[in-house]
């Protein structure tokens, strides 16, 4: 009982801190900076989720933008359908909005998770680069489907029925509440028996099988969780943008996600967090380079892979960086 109370207290405290930071952010920063802060949060969710399969499990997805799209469209559509119901039941206040928004996000995550399951079940038999290409293919197919779905606005995108678009529910508070929740959940998962098994699959799938690890089930589960996480990010994104359009989920978006996790270090949650922030900020810093921006961005990607393929943190977490390292630790040399 004491434990539960303590946890509840921490939970409330964290929410209060996030709320406070949100207020401070709105007071202290321009809308422009606030947007970058929100995007960084969404990126962090994407990166932490993608890292679960690309980093921890060693299964490579380069089509994750597709799952983000499913989540974004799902949350947008459900949100629009749900809002009048919520209004009738709970009035038009913040409670009603929060209710329908978060329910919509969960719905988006559910759709994305399901599509992750559908993609993952057959394709996770494949390894390495073949799996990567298949995920790329699925990502493109998903985008093409949305591009042709007239009830979701086809190429123009889906904006709900109001000309000003979807309600801008995505605030600092909600983004970072979700960031905190997802980081904690994924962290807990990574450092658990399941996480150990996923790492074992990455290290040596045959040995993992021999240790009775249900590799296929775990891989598919990780894939679905990762897709669902991308779905949450998509839902937040949709409600920040006030709309979704298929072109926002091109292959480039998947590449951005890859950059996020390799900058920080494949397999490291804190690395993914740093990477998510890095991509949001660096793309912004380079914005007025105009035509030269993406050339530099691509060069950056190549240079990182050559100079430091394990990323900034490698597989370590930030807090492990300052811990005394064991003699001859093989962390760095292992691949």
């Amino acid at each position, binding site marked *: 009982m004491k434990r539960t109370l303590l946890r509840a207290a921490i939970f409330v405290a964290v929410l209060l801190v996030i709320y406070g930071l949100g207020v401070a952010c709105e007071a202290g920063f321009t809308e422009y900076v606030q947007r970058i802060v929100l995007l960084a949060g969404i990126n962090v969710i994407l990166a932490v989720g993608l890292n679960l399969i690309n980093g921890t499990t060693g299964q*490579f997805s*380069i089509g994750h933008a597709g799952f983000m799209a499913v989540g974004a469209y799902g949350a947008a559509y459900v949100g629009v359908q749900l809002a009048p119901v919520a209004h009738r039941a709970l009035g038009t206040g913040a409670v009603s909005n929060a209710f329908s928004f978060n329910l919509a996000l969960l719905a988006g995550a559910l759709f994305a998770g399901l599509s992750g399951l559908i993609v993952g079940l*057959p*394709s996770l*038999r*494949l390894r*390495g*680069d*073949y799996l*990567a*290409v*298949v995920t*790329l*293919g*699925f990502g*493109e*197919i998903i985008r*093409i*489907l949305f*591009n*042709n779905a007239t009830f979701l606005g086809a190429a123009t995108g889906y904006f709900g029925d109001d000309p000003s678009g979807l309600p801008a529910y995505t605030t600092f508070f909600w983004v970072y509440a979700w960031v905190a929740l997802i980081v904690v959940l994924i962290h807990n998962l990574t450092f658990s028996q399941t996480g150990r098994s996923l790492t074992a699959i990455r290290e040596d799938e*045959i040995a993992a099988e021999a240790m009775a690890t249900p590799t296929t089930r775990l891989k598919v589960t990780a894939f679905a969780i990762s897709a669902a996480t991308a779905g949450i990010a998509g839902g937040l994104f949709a409600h920040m943008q006030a709309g979704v359009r298929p072109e926002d989920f091109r*292959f*480039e978006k998947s*590449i951005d996600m*890859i950059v996020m996790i*390799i900058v920080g270090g494949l397999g490291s949650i804190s690395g993914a967090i740093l990477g998510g922030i890095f991509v949001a900020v660096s793309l912004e810093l380079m914005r007025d380079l105009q*035509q*030269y921006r*993406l*050339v530099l*961005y*691509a*060069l950056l*990607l*190549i240079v990182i*892979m*050559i100079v430091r*393929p394990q990323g900034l943190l490698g597989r370590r977490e930030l807090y492990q960086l300052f811990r005394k390292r064991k003699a001859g630790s093989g962390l760095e040399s292992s*691949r």
Partner: protein
Amino acid sequence: MTQLLQQIINGLSLGSIYALIALGYTMVYGILKLINFAHGEVFMVGAYTGYYSAGALGISAYEAQHRDFPVYLGLIVLVTAMATAALLGVLIELLAYRPVRNAPRLTPLITAIGVSLFLQNAGMLLFSPNPQRYPAILSEVRFEFFGVIVTNIKLTIFVVALCLMLGLHLFVQKTWTGRAMRALSFNIDAAKLMGIDTDNVIRSTFAVGSALAAAGGILFGLDQITINPLMGVLTGLKAFVAAVLGGIGSIPGAVVGGLLIGLAEQLTAGYLSAEYRDAITFVILILILLLKPEGLLGVVRVEKV
């Protein structure tokens, strides 16, 4: 019926271009187990080299006077483009892939994506993002058989693609370098034991694959009328799918795969909807990887435990 035949002819000509590009993917993958994502961009650079070298050889004057561009100049354009692309391919290998050759397998994959992005955007800077009309290196002549139209350009595509593929076949079967390539793709250490300079052979592989892609680029320009700096993205992916479909590492496989993808795409666009012409390629990719991952003409390899 006429329509079906027409679609098939169009599909086969598109497919021969895919096949030429797919050869590069399959050769590199066969030896390095690397999906050379930048190959599509090499194809693009090849097409642009053709564009600019034809311009340098004064093609606009011929066009203005409605005169045919001389065949020998056309061949010079082809050779220039192939040589430039070969050089580019070798450079990419040297600067971007060699440093990560011994890294885990996905590192070069990401590097390759980086190179691909780099070349796309550099292409936009250098060549402008506007689509360019491809110069009439070959003046168009049309033949009609019972309503089915075949142009000399389509015929040229078949002939050039066929010649290059035969040339490649002979090269791989009959020359020392070709044999060395096949040896490398089977067992790289054993190849070293034969005294083969493996770095050199890998370089040659990139050069040959890139040159074929450049030829594909020129044929593509002739056939498709316009080129743009992003032309390599989807075309490259489709050619890669063609290589996988045929059985990656297999040269005849790449040809068969290329033709099939071209056909599938054209028939989907003609009879289902062009909206799904790109999707069908990926559907084929997914199906083949799930059902017969070694491809139509590929060989199964047992994993050693």
